[in-house]
């Protein structure tokens, strides 16, 4: 069966050139960068090379790039590290209601330890208002954290403007750019960002490797204490192979970014246009324009996401959903709720994240396969007939 991956945010295959670059570090180049002898030096050089390439992708100084084991670690490190290191300065953190779990739950953990938190609201598109950021600032504020783009609904935040507000008040500004770094242009200078989380897989690097950028001068405590790897800020034997892969993937992403965007946007826009044409009561979630190039997030009323997803899976089409049944936490996506989508509608969430391997044919297939699935499920749904707006389909 032809497999269509419309779930790139969860997992993208690693690029062949990246695999090739990684392989030697699994076998003959097995050195530990901390070793002083030549086998170790080889590994250290490889890591520093990857650091430069990763830094270039976000226009950062390489010495500020700290490799981590995933986007989640970068986010936890940023939030916990900055709050811990700045306790003397203050105890207030500003964030939003639409962050990824790895921010949301790290913030909850901090809250339990006494950190004061302001969670900014968003509009119906999931956008934060930079004015709200400014209003929330107190003289105890030591960190502002707003994600660059939302992985579930695709909305791109006005990070540059928020960065300016933070800079004006001299408060460190963190952005979770896991969904954007390597995908759309990210520039820590232009965006006035002081800390930035990223991961390799969204731009076709390996899973289980990420980075945190920390601007020179920002006070931060390590999350992993131990040896003096990563400049003393992230201890532990490095996943050398993974880091090498991240570097190579960053290099390619920088080069191919515009071409990738130009390929994705028409596919995305076809789906956004054609799905509501093919199926009644399909709603777009997230911003229609300020949106990740490969993100199609919709709700299909009167049906639940997992059941659609399973039928699609049987047809070889891999997608995701923000429904409660799918989340391991059995909760409807907090992002959609924060945007004002009602819980029942959010259950019908379908999330498609497109990638470089997708084609117009894939879009054709999805637009062809999904409607009969929805019809079948709606015929089975007690909510469907209850709705007066819709006449039952054959």
């Amino acid at each position: 069966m032809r497999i269509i991956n419309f779930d790139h945010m969860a997992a993208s295959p690693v690029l062949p050139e990246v695999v090739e670059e990684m392989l030697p570090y699994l076998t003959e180049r097995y050195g530990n960068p901390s070793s002083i002898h030549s086998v170790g030096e080889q590994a250290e050089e490889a890591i520093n090379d990857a650091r430069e390439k990763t830094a270039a992708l976000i226009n950062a100084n390489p010495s500020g790039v700290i490799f981590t084991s995933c986007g989640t670690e970068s986010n936890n490190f940023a939030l916990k590290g900055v709050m811990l290191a700045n306790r003397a300065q203050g105890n207030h953190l500003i964030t939003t209601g639409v962050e990824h779990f790895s921010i949301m739950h790290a913030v909850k953990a901090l809250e339990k330890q006494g950190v004061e938190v302001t969670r900014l609201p968003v509009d119906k598109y999931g956008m934060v208002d930079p004015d709200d950021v400014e209003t929330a600032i107190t003289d105890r504020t030591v960190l502002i954290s707003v994600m660059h783009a939302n992985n579930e609904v695709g909305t791109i935040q006005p990070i540059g403007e928020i960065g300016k507000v933070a800079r004006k008040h001299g408060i460190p500004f963190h952005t979770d750019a896991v969904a954007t770094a390597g995908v759309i242009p990210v520039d820590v200078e232009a965006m006035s960002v002081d800390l930035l989380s990223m991961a390799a897989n969204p731009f076709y690097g390996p899973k289980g490797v990420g980075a945190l950028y920390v601007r020179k001068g920002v006070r931060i405590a390590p999350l992993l204490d131990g040896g003096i790897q990563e400049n003393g800020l992230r201890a532990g034997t490095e996943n050398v192979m993974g880091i090498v892969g991240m570097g190579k993937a960053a290099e390619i992403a920088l080069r191919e970014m515009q071409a990738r965007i130009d390929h994705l946007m028409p596919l995305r826009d076809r789906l956004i246009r054609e799905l509501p044409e093919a199926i009644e009561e399909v709603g777009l979630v997230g911003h229609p324009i300020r949106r990740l190039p490969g993100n199609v997030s919709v709700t299909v009323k009167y049906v639940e996401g997992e059941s659609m997803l399973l039928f699609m899976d049987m047809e070889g089409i891999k997608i995701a959903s923000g429904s409660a049944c799918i989340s391991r936490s059995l909760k409807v996506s907090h992002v959609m709720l924060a945007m004002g989508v009602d819980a029942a509608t959010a259950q019908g969430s379908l999330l498609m994240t497109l990638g470089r391997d997708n084609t117009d044919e894939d879009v054709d297939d999805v637009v062809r396969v999904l409607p009969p699935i929805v019809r079948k499920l709606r015929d089975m749904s007690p909510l469907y007939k209850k709705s007066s707006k819709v006449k039952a389909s054959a």
Partner: protein
Amino acid sequence: MYSEIVMEHFKNPRNVGEIENADGIGEVGNPACGDIMTFYIKVKNNVLEDVKFKTFGCGAAIAVSSMVSEMAKGKTLDEAMRISHRDVITALDGLPKKKHHCSNLGSDALHRAIEDYQAKLQGKMYEKPGDGPEVCECPVRDIEDPEEAPYCATVCERSSK
């Protein structure tokens, strides 16, 4: 994730639909939790002559509904009232733990339909009990001891019982 039997019932659910002028109707669940099931029954000589359902929910919820409808058909009301969550899980060759609670409401919906029928027989309106947990949430993250809540569904079950 799902057993073959679950997938079979999910793909080809039995007894989907409504019964016009049903003798009893039972509904459980709420959309925030993810699953809503409505059961319709036709009773003759104290036996479930026909059982139909409509379900909004995940794969497990649909398979559970289908399985319950099959198990119930032809049974006496007493026998049908004794179909338990566990019986359904066994008949389905198991369900993922996190689906144990929220999606395994099929037998509850059936029982309500029977109770509805019995209430009507006695000429009074059946008083619908509370509609399951309002929010079927997973508090793993809010509990410091993971052993108290290693799986969402466990907690779900506990908090709703």
